[in-house]
Every structure is written in structure tokens, then in C-alpha cells.
């Protein structure tokens, strides 16, 4: 592994069982601590316990985070990554497990897009990242996507170039149409003057679905930001659709514009600027945001989890 390279080193680790997991992750993080690098471990809670116990005293120099929480909405990862990597304090080493058996399947396309975008967004950053994938528990399609979004693959202690690396093609492949649910109720926002009525509509629908006062306020802000973005950037109307399914309350905005910036909403806004915050805020508030864009229009779908079980990834 090109650990001393100046820019990004982005490796997918294919592991089978705890032993292989620890054999790869523990030396990786210990090496980072020994080199004086800042080390972060963002993996599901069970793996956190495993790694923390295995690294021993080195754990004191490592920041541990539950990926199921911080990575619930994958798009939030980029601002966090920017925050840890953009401090001019030398190289940063990260273990980030983006998907795992049991992770919500609806989240998966956003995870793949994140991994694909990671390569170009942080290409010049001094980051060494290791992304573990449970090769025994995840299906072949997931592992194929990992090969397509990581330039390097580590398996059985051997690191090799991924022969299938194709991050832009993979990003496009997961630009999946998002037809609103048949049960959706809709509200069309044609001008800024419709925003207040849109918020009232959101409040009515979400209250009747049993959302808390706090969640309703979140959803009103999400709907307002999505609709405002549509009006500002497309000049045309925006259709808000709301529905409840599989343990989530969903708010989707459809407009006739094309979203050309795949990083929109993923990067932290610059200080003292007023633009570029709408989708960032939507990502900050929503548990998941999915996007589909084409010449025919753009759909942005924001999910608020209701805390119920959702279809899991295998």
C-alpha cells in the first residue's frame, strides 16, 4: 500500500470473519498511531468493540465512531471528512466501513455513490483510508461495486490494484430513477409565495402520520429547502410528494432541472457565503437523501426514519 503517497490512498478490504478483519484493521490503525497520524475508526458498533479491544493501548490515540450513526446518511460523511482532513496537521488514517450485512438496502446506492465520489473529491488530500467489506456476508454485486469504487483491493493481506476500478461509471449506474410511491400525496410549489402553504401541507400530512413535533419541523425545513432550490435553480415548479413506507417518512421534490454537481449537498459550505447550503441542510437533517437527475428533471428524496425496521442489505 502506498502509505507515504502525498494524496489519497483508498483501499477496499475484503475480509471473511473476525480474524481476517482484525488482522488487517489492527496493524493499519496501530501503524497510523506509530507514525503520529490522526486515526479515525468509523465502523458498526460490534466492530468498534472488537477493534478497540484488539488495539490495546493504541486505542487512546484513535477516535472511534459508530458508523451506523454517523453514516446513517452517507452524504454527511464528506463534510466530516473535510473537517478531519483539512486541518493541515499531516496525514490522516481512516477505517470506514460503508456497508455491512443488515444495512438498510435503500441506503446502499447512496453509499456506492459516496465511495465513487470520494476518489475525485479527496484525490489530493493526505488521507489513507481502509474500507472493510464483509466478503462472506455481502453478495457478489456489493463486492463488485467495491472493486469499481476503490482503486486498491486488500484481500488475504495482499494489496493489489482493482482491475475493475470505474468510479464515474459506477456513479452514473447508481443514478437510479426515483418514482414517487403510489400512495404519495403531492403539493406543487410554483412560486416562493407557495412555500408557506407547502409547509402547512407538510405539517398536516406528517402530523396525521404521527410524526413528532420536532420531526415535523425538520420535514418542513427539508421541504422548504428542496422547493426553494428548485425554484431558484430551475425557475420552474417543484412537486413535493410525501409518503410513509417501510419505517420511514419520505419527502421527495421533483423538478424539471438537471443537477450537474454530484457533490451538491455533500460539501460543507464556505464561511460567509449564502449559497450552496440548501441541500447541505437537507442532508444534515434527513436520515438518507437519494437523488436522480437527467435531462428530463431531478428528483431528490429525503427520508426521516420512524425508527422501524427497513429492508436490510445482504
Amino acid at each position, binding site marked *: 500500500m502506498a502509505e507515504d503517497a502525498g494524496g489519497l490512498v483508498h483501499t477496499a478490504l475484503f475480509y471473511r470473519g473476525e480474524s481476517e478483519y482484525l488482522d488487517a484493521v489492527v496493524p493499519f490503525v496501530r501503524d497510523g498511531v506509530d507514525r503520529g497520524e490522526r486515526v479515525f475508526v468509523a465502523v458498526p458498533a460490534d466492530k468498534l468493540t472488537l477493534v478497540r479491544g484488539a488495539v490495546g493501548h493504541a486505542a487512546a490515540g484513535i477516535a472511534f465512531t459508530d458508523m451506523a450513526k454517523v453514516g446513517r446518511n452517507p452524504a454527511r460523511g464528506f463534510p466530516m471528512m473535510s473537517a478531519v482532513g483539512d486541518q493541515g496537521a499531516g496525514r490522516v488514517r481512516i477505517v470506514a466501513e460503508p456497508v455491512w450485512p443488515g444495512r438498510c438496502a435503500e441506503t446502499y446506492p447512496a453509499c456506492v455513490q459516496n465511495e465513487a465520489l470520494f476518489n475525485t473529491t479527496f484525490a489530493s488530500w493526505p488521507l489513507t483510508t481502509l474500507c472493510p467489506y464483509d466478503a462472506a456476508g455481502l453478495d457478489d454485486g456489493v463486492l463488485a461495486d467495491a472493486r469499481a469504487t476503490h482503486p486498491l483491493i486488500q484481500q488475504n493481506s495482499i494489496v493489489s490494484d482493482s482491475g475493475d476500478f470505474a468510479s464515474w461509471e459506477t456513479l452514473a449506474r447508481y443514478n437510479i430513477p426515483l418514482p414517487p410511491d403510489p400512495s404519495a400525496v403531492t403539493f406543487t410549489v410554483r412560486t416562493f409565495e407557495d412555500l408557506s402553504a407547502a*409547509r402547512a401541507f407538510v405539517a398536516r400530512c406528517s402530523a396525521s402520520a404521527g410524526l413528532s413535533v420536532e420531526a415535523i419541523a425538520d420535514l*418542513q425545513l427539508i421541504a422548504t429547502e428542496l422547493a426553494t432550490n428548485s425554484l431558484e435553480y430551475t425557475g420552474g415548479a417543484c412537486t413535493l410528494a410525501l409518503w410513509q413506507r417501510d419505517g420511514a417518512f419520505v419527502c421527495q421534490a421533483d423538478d424539471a432541472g438537471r443537477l450537474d454537481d454530484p457533490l451538491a449537498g455533500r460539501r460543507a459550505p464556505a464561511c*460567509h457565503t449564502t449559497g450552496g*447550503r440548501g441541500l447541505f441542510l437537507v442532508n444534515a437533517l434527513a436520515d438518507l437523501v437519494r437523488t436522480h437527475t437527467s435531462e428530463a428533471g431531478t428528483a431528490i428524496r429525503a427520508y426521516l426514519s420512524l425508527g422501524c425496521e427497513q429492508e436490510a442489505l445482504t
Partner: protein
Amino acid sequence: MTRRHGAVDSAAGLTPFGHLGWSYRDRGEFFSRAAEYIADGLARDQWVEYVGAGDHTSLRAELAELPGLADVSGVKVSAVPQFYGVPPGGDVVDPEIAVATQVAAVHEALRQGYSGFRAVVDATSMSERPHQRDALSCFEFLVDRQMAVFPMSALCAFDVSRLGSDAAALACLHPLVGEDSAPFQLYAEPGVQFTLAGEVDSACADTFTTALGRIWPLISGREVTVDARGLAYIGHRQLLELDRRARSDRSRVVLRTGQPILIRLAGLLNLTNVRVVAADRHDGGDSPVGTVAGR
């Protein structure tokens, strides 16, 4: 947040006092609201004044035609410049002089045994040019401070057919607004520099920026406390505008809210000069006493 505030569809029942900004689209609408407002004042033995752009005779004739008022002999009529203390030939309000004139009128009303003072003012003629609106806005903000503590109030009317969207930036400087007059209210409340209520989003971005810019120089002190407990919504762009405004003169805004989402939003925006804090239940009371909010 103890004063009545919010949107109303009538000028009736705003007793004993209620500072109301109303953007009207036709004179008939204005006359109806004026009649409602005057009727309540007469019923409560207040000094009532009817103020417009015409001369004494035409205003008296207008007053006599207001619907539903049996006896208007006790209502004083005044031309707009006279009411605001504007010298003959002038058409721009001097805010300080106008406030002093109003306060003197209140004292005179009380001295004569009235229970208070209320006026119906068609302020359109003092609002048609930008510098007129700047001056009138300062007056509205300053006089509203007096209305928060003195037995006085006014219905301030603005003709949308002549002022267009500029009417909203004047109407919003009243705790009470006519429906469709302004989506938010920026007004005085004892103990804070000002109160924000209603909804502020991209639909009224220019209005908010204009109103804020006009009243900002009137706010003293490096720490500006804003009671935002009546604020149902504020967009992130408008929060950033408030932050930018505070940063420009190195003041610090403390925005008191009962909404957790607003605190969260402020944190996400990394505001430098605006701090959003949870409102203390004992700090003026969370209960919207006497509010019209939500109707």
C-alpha cells in the same frame, strides 16, 4: 412576547390597543377596516383620530361615509403631515419629531380624560418614495416602542396599488398585520431590542432585508436580544442575513426561540454573530398571551 401579534382579517376587536399595519387593495377595504378600528376606540372612550391625505373637509366627508358608524362627531380628523408633525410643504417624516408629536397627543388625550389614543392613518402619501419609506419605517419602529408601554395604538394603512411590494416592508413593522399584508412581523417588546414573529422565507427575503436594514441603526448596544418565540419559520438565508447584519457592526444577536429546529439550524450554519438560545419559560413567559398568531 406579551403583545398581541400575527395576521388578522379584521380591524375589529383589537382592544384596548393594537398596532395594526394593513396593506389594502381598494378604498372600500380600507374604509371597512377604518370603521372597525374607530368603532372600538369610540366604544372604549379613546381619543380617536382619522388621518389621510386630503384636507379637513374631504377627510370629514370620508369619515361620515365610513360604514356602520352612527356618530363620528367625536373623531378628530387630521391631514397626514399635521399628524406626523411634518412642516408645511414637507412630505417626509422626521421620526424623532413624529414620535414626540404622537406621545404629546397621547398625553393630551389622557389629560382630557380619554382612556387612551388611537388613530387610523392612511400613510401612503408618506411612503411613495424610497427615502420616505426609510423615514416612515424608522418612525414606525420607534413609535411601536411607545405603543408597547403607552395607552396608544394606530391602524397604519398602505395602498398596494400605489406602493406595490414596498407596502409589505412597512406593514411588517407592526405586531398586527392584515392578512396578505406581510408574512412576518418585526415589532417592539419591553426587555428585548425587537420581536420577530410569523414566517420568514424566500417569499419575503427582500422585505426582510429591507426592514432589517431600516431598523438596525435604531438598535443600540453590542448585544441585540431578539424574541423569536413567535417565529413559526425562518429560512437559512434569512438567518445568514441577520448574521451578516450583526457582523457588519460587530454586534451580537441573541435569538430566543422555543423551537429546537432553529437552534439546530444555527449550529449547522456556523453563525458567527447570532446565537440562538432556548427561550426561558420564566423569561417573559412562553405562553402566547393575547396573541392572534395562527388565528
